[in-house]
């Protein structure tokens, strides 16, 4: 039985239209993958803006656990502990 944790999801302002304007969400999850799966259930429009149909995080979206990008930890399998914050932001890109 995986250990789950109270996690805060901090939503960048450009994404808040997809979750009713909420600046943050709270959920229980043991990994980032589990957190995103819950977002898919609870806030499908937000999920679609963060992940594509294959479940991959979109190329120009940054997902951080506390201050660390998940690519520098274990990606979607990054483990979470109570009180962790997942921040979702647009990546620096454009032209």
């Amino acid at each position, binding site marked *: 039985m995986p250990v789950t944790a109270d996690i805060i999801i901090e939503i960048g302002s*450009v*994404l808040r239209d*997809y979750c009713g304007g909420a600046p943050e969400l709270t959920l229980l999850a043991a990994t980032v993958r589990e957190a995103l799966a819950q977002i898919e259930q609870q806030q499908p*429009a937000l999920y*679609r*803006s*963060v992940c*594509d*149909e*294959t*479940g*991959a995080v*979109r*190329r*120009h*979206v940054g997902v951080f656990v506390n201050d660390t990008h998940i690519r520098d930890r274990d990606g979607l399998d990054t483990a979470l502990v109570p009180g962790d914050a997942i921040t979702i932001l*647009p*990546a620096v*890109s*454009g032209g």
Partner: protein
Amino acid sequence: MPERVLLTIGTKKGLFVAEGAKNRRSFSLRGPFGSGVAVYSTLVDTRARPTIYASSCNAFFGMKVLRSTDLGKTFKETKSAPTFPKDDGRALINIWSLEPGAGKKDLWCGVEPASLFRSEDGGDSWQMIEGISNHEHARKWQPGNGGLCLHTIVRHGNRVHLGISTGGHYLSEDGGATYTASNSGVGAGFVPDPYPEFGQCVHKIAQHNAAPGRLYMQNHGGWAERPGIGVLRSDDYGHTWRSIANGLPSDFGFPIVVHPEDPDTVYVMPLEPMTRTCPDGAPAVWRSENGGDSWKRLAHGLPKKETYFTVQRDALDIDEVKSPALYFGTTTGQLWMGRDGGEDWECLFDALPPIHNVKATVV
């Protein structure tokens, strides 16, 4: 309100809407709408209360469909955009085509990677059409420079023509459920077989509603070894095609447009095939009034030299006012209008973002 001409202009930096009286003396511009990202497809749906749809290619947060019910003064995203089934393995990259379906709220949508979706509720929900999206050829199609896109949807009765780059022309004669590659006479310069069953780089297909058996195609031409395969015509509902490129300065180009009242009058914008820009730096639209048997250059008012833009596949259109005007948008951000069927050109806007899409509609 008197009838107006509405121009929807999809650009690299969002959607613009220009509106003018039917005399087209001047146009007012509003926008950009959307989140500052590319718009490759627009539709002004006049079947009921006029509704504007536009794709919004958000590189950050995925594809969105924008909708306006106030003639383009405000836009909102629809409840969802087309989405591949979870177990499909493909992910939506772009929306290339939005066309009206049979019912008042039916929409058809061509996407990249090349697939077809339909909505029955004005774009709030979408269903993938298996007959083409999972066609036995679908996993063999290859992307062109613009991506593997289903960019053209032409419907008439039970017939549906699809243009795929690079997949070729696919024809349905059962209302859009099943499709057959229908490329007899459609050449390809990039594979050993000059006339393959499928895999051609079709750029655009056009049809006149009153003559549905007649179709025109701008195919990927410009091949020295295989001349004339770029501009084609069919007189049998798209079963066979033949070249009508004789007389053009180049058979390479992207858009092809039919006159709203005359199925024999067709317009193309030939480009130099290597650079895909205006031949000799002098842009021109070419018109045939006899179904492609001969062509006339239309350039009065256009720059005569040192001009090297591209006009993309959906960036040429014609309105339905008496003595219609043509419109084209350029990759350098200019929107041109050609009065009297392209006889006399003027620049309406000269500093927009690079233009992908122009649609002209009387509302």
